């Protein structure tokens, strides 16, 4: 009798855990179903290649797509070299001392700083102190700093997968430390770093709070022509279309279309990263 009670409890307990999992899966399915089913109708060639017209009630989202792309370029230019440099230091040079622990603690804390605080920092440093104004440059730099922790962590992961023997082989042949890193470590870890970079950029492309005050614009008729111009961005456009527009009900299909384009873009970037990782694994360079 007692054994039966325990078995019943086990059955109910596992049922409860299964329900938790199904609930999470349901949330994800509902999110995608809603956006895809209601956003699909808005997508057309015109939607992707035309600017908004008639007080943003018609037309497309082309300038927002381009703006997001431009900002991502600046983000990459800032965060990739800095992230790789820091990762090289941590994995190749750093000794286990107080300074190294401080750097690691800082990285973990930077990744926990709220995005709106990065926005404030961007306003104070890039927009005001550096006189970039509200621009692609200021927004890109802000997002670059925000994605830095992610770039560092994934670059370090990539460096860790290169076997010790590669370094030792070069050193044994008389190469200096830097020569060993340059010829025997970096070539094998660059594709892995690339994966991390793409993931970081996909995060940055979806961020809204850091660009609210550093350069995103409500509406611009033209494509930005310099890094000091303001820009339209997909996530900001979705925010505008769902809360700030004068006729929110009318532009709801545009909002759904923008949301769909945004998540498809992010999904594609993730897919590319996953494919690169998969091909590396097949080639046997990345273990695990």
């Amino acid at each position: 009798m007692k054994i039966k009670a325990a078995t019943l409890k086990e059955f109910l307990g596992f049922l409860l855990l299964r329900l938790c999992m199904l609930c999470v899966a349901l949330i994800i399915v509902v999110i995608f179903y809603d956006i895809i089913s209601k956003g699909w109708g808005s997508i057309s060639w015109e939607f992707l290649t035309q600017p908004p017209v008639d007080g943003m009630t018609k037309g497309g989202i082309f300038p927002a797509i381009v703006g997001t792309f431009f900002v991502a370029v600046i983000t990459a230019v800032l965060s990739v070299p800095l992230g790789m440099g820091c990762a090289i230091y941590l994995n190749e040079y750093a000794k286990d001392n107080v300074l190294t622990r401080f750097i690691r603690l800082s990285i973990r804390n930077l990744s926990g700083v709220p995005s709106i605080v990065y926005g404030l920092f961007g306003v104070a440093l890039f927009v005001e102190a550096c006189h970039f104004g509200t621009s692609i440059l200021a927004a890109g730099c802000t997002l670059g700093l925000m994605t830095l922790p992610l770039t560092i962590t994934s670059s370090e992961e990539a460096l860790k997968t290169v076997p010790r023997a590669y370094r030792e082989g070069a050193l044994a042949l008389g190469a200096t430390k830097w020569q060993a890193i340059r010829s025997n470590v970096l070539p094998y870890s660059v594709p892995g770093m690339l994966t991390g970079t793409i993931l970081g950029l996909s995060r940055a492309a979806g961020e809204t709070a850091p660009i609210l005050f550093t350069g995103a614009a409500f509406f611009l008729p033209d494509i930005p022509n310099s890094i000091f111009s303001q820009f339209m961005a997909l996530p900001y456009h979705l925010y505008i279309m769902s809360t700030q527009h004068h006729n929110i009900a009318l532009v709801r299909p545009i909002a759904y279309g923008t949301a769909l384009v945004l998540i498809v873009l992010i999904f594609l970037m993730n897919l590319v990263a996953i494919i690169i990782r998969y091909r590396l694994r097949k080639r046997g360079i990345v273990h695990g």
Partner: protein
Amino acid sequence: MTMKRQLKEKLIEWFFLLNGILVILILGGIFILLLKNALPAFREVSLKDFVISPIWNPDAYDKPTYGLLPMLVSSLMVTVGALIVAIPLGIGTAAYMSDVARPRVREIVKPLVEILAGIPSVVVGFLGIVLVGPFITHLTGARNGLNALNGSILLAVMALPTIISLSEDALASVPRAYEEASLALGANKWQTVVRVKIPAAASGILAACMLGMGRAIGETMTVLMATGNAAAFPNSFLGPVKTMTSTIAIELGEVAYYTTHFYMLFAVGLILFIITFIINVISDIVFHKHTRAQL
């Protein structure tokens, strides 16, 4: 020649060292810039009023008041609400994936959770407006679906991926011998999960929940879009609230730069920075206790 080569090597090492130190400088720089832009606010408003005044009304005609309390309480309210939903759901899902699910189910659910982590907060906020809001109105008869409850639900969704993946890692790192010893002593799988594995992974799970909390309290777009943003002191989960993050997001766009109001928004940002910093450091300590316990 060797001298030159050694010098070059040293320079390269210093270059990368500088690169590493830069991270500390950025974190310090954020703190200092926030502090520098926050301090002038207290030339006109006393720190005491900032902390204890129950009203935030920068646009008042006669005397603007800057009370932190209403937005601090709002932020804590939506965060606690989110954790009440996300912690049981997250730990349950993690336990299911690590101890119950067949490998094929896990292969499907794990990427799904990663995809959820990649959904931008603005998209989640949008769904709060078009899906969760009307649903709440329908269910509770509240006048406005954009309220604290809505924000809590959305923040739970945002915090779930962090809690699930890190809790699952913690459960997976419990040595197999613990599980085998428990099963050998006659405990069934459920008793093993609840009384052996979860307690053994407790500090890792706690760290996961704290990181989820840090994410929730700093989340901006979802609460900005879904909580209604009324500046009054929050009194119910079915009423609108205005969190610290949404206050900054709304008012920094309207404020004249270098006024008391502008500096005040940096003061709010500084408080937010300090709160998340403390949460991160504590979860870091808890987590290291966890990894040390494993050795």
